[in-house]
């Protein structure tokens, strides 16, 4: 076969898939697929291997240090993380950490923002790799099928944070807690350190966001020096802390005030983990 750039990239990715144990990890996942290899949400494990190989390049780029992966219990679990970094590299790093360092490997299904579904091509890549539209019924169905779900209850308020609000949790929604109660699912808080420094935003240019129909339009401080390269993530080191599982009991349709108190327990725990993780970090690059 002619050694075109596409062929060379394909070969390189296949090598990454094999060497990085991605194939072995994906093959060991308990996914129910149909005769054409898809699950009902569009996950295609064989194609996902290719996307995970690409994702693993970023995973290596960020050189994450993973703590407490053993805290993820078997079966259904909600991984609740702090969101940051403008682009969803935090989700990518946590997903790859569970896949590559989990024993056994787990594939947390990331719940993605609703606007991903209307992005051409990206919606296909995300579905084939296991991402699912962030919707309570999708989430409930996946939990009842004993999946791990990765959620960022801050939503776009978290990912679009500007520098002055870094590592301060935006208010959490109540949906994840109601789902945990309804499906009797443990919650594992996940503190992600490094995301805030990967793509720094000093200002959210809202008129541009409205024009582009995006949730926010980040302005990196060095945008005027390096142009679009400012959106390339900095080679910071990620530290991922998986906390001990938290279990909650009570009716899922309880009053908002009651649910808010339970949500607060999770945000308090997560904020404490973030603060401790940052205190231990010697440099954003080490």
């Amino acid at each position, binding site marked *: 076969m002619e050694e075109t750039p596409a062929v060379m990239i394909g070969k390189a990715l296949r090598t990454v898939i094999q060497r990085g144990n991605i194939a072995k990890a994906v093959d060991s996942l308990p996914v129910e697929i*149909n*005769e*054409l290899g*898809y699950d*009902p*949400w*569009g996950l295609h494990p064989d194609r996902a291997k290719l996307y995970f190989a690409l994702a693993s390049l970023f995973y290596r780029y960020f050189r994450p240090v993973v703590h407490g992966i053993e805290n993820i219990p078997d079966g259904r679990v909600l991984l609740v993380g702090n969101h940051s970094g403008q682009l969803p590299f935090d989700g990518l790093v946590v997903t790859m950490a569970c896949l590559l360092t989990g024993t056994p490997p787990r594939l947390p299904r990331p719940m993605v923002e*609703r*606007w991903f*579904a*209307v*992005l*051409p*091509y*990206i*919606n*296909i890549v995300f*579905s084939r790799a296991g991402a*699912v*539209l962030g*919707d*309570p*019924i*999708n989430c409930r*169905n996946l939990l009842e099928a004993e999946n791990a779900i990765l959620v960022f209850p801050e939503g776009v308020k978290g990912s679009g944070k500007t520098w002055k609000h870094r590592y301060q949790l935006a208010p959490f929604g109540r949906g994840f807690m109601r789902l945990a109660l309804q499906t009797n699912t443990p919650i594992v808080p996940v503190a992600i350190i490094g995301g805030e420094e990967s793509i720094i935003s000093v200002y959210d240019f809202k008129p541009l966001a409205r024009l582009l129909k995006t949730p926010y339009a980040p302005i990196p401080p060095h945008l005027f020096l390096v142009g679009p390269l400012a959106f390339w993530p900095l080679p910071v080191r990620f530290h991922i802390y998986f906390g001990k599982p938290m279990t909650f009991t009570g009716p899922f349709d309880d009053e908002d005030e009651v649910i808010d108190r339970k949500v607060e327990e999770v945000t308090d725990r997560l904020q404490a983990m973030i603060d401790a993780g940052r205190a231990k970090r010697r440099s954003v690059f080490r």
Partner: protein
Amino acid sequence: MVGASLAEDGFRIVGVDYRKVEHPPDYVEAVYRANYNKTLIEDIFRRHRPTHVLHLGRVGNLKEQIGKRFDLNVLGSRKVMDLSLKYGAGRLVVLSTFHIYGAHPRNHIPIYEDEPLRAGTEFPQIADAIQFDNQALTWLHRHRALPTVLLRPCHVVGPHINNTISRFLRLPVIPVPMGFSPMTQFIHERDIVAAIVGATKGEASGVFNVAGQSPIPWLEAVALTGARVVPVPSSLGALALRASTRVSSAFPPYMINFFKFPCVISDVAFREAFSWRPRVTDREAIVSTVRGY
């Protein structure tokens, strides 16, 4: 095909269509051309006193004027249901469609029977289909004396099917929206026939989704046809479809959303209520639709 299957089971079949039926099949005892909302339909009920009424003739063709579709689908259906009750039918089956849920970027997977019908928000042309369904739903709750089954099947395909989706899959060149491939469900003609027959002979009543084996991406379905695939920017495709409906009925514009966003339904309730399972694989369903056997 439903008639043939029921005839084999000993039912006597009377057919009614609002269009002319050129060659009625042998198993049919009588065939009438009658608008469902006109007086002749009552004569047919009076003469034959049907024990089971299968209302399968919803008009989905947008070539028909909205006024006529409303008359046939809404007023006509109301009349068929009222007459079924008046003349003592023992069971009523109404065939609706999953199109009324609408394909939408916010759709979760799967969609259950009690969920909102989004289709009308973007395509008001489908209002008659939504009202057809809603009316049957209200009717079945009000008239418990006549057990009624309302079916909402996914895309029905097969060698003998001549609906929009089957004709589209048979094209030699298939345009697809660039950058989208939503999970899509198909049910083969043999399976939908078995489902309708099961609903006719069964005991449960209510509203039920009916789907095939399992959802597959739209581009996989197109690939199975062997057609040449032409990706088209979806805005251009939508514009072309809206323009084309002014001169032809070939393709309802709302269908483009079914090639961009998912509309995956759950038929668990139907499977449990009627002990029914689809037998035909997705691959066979698509391939047989294109090959014609």
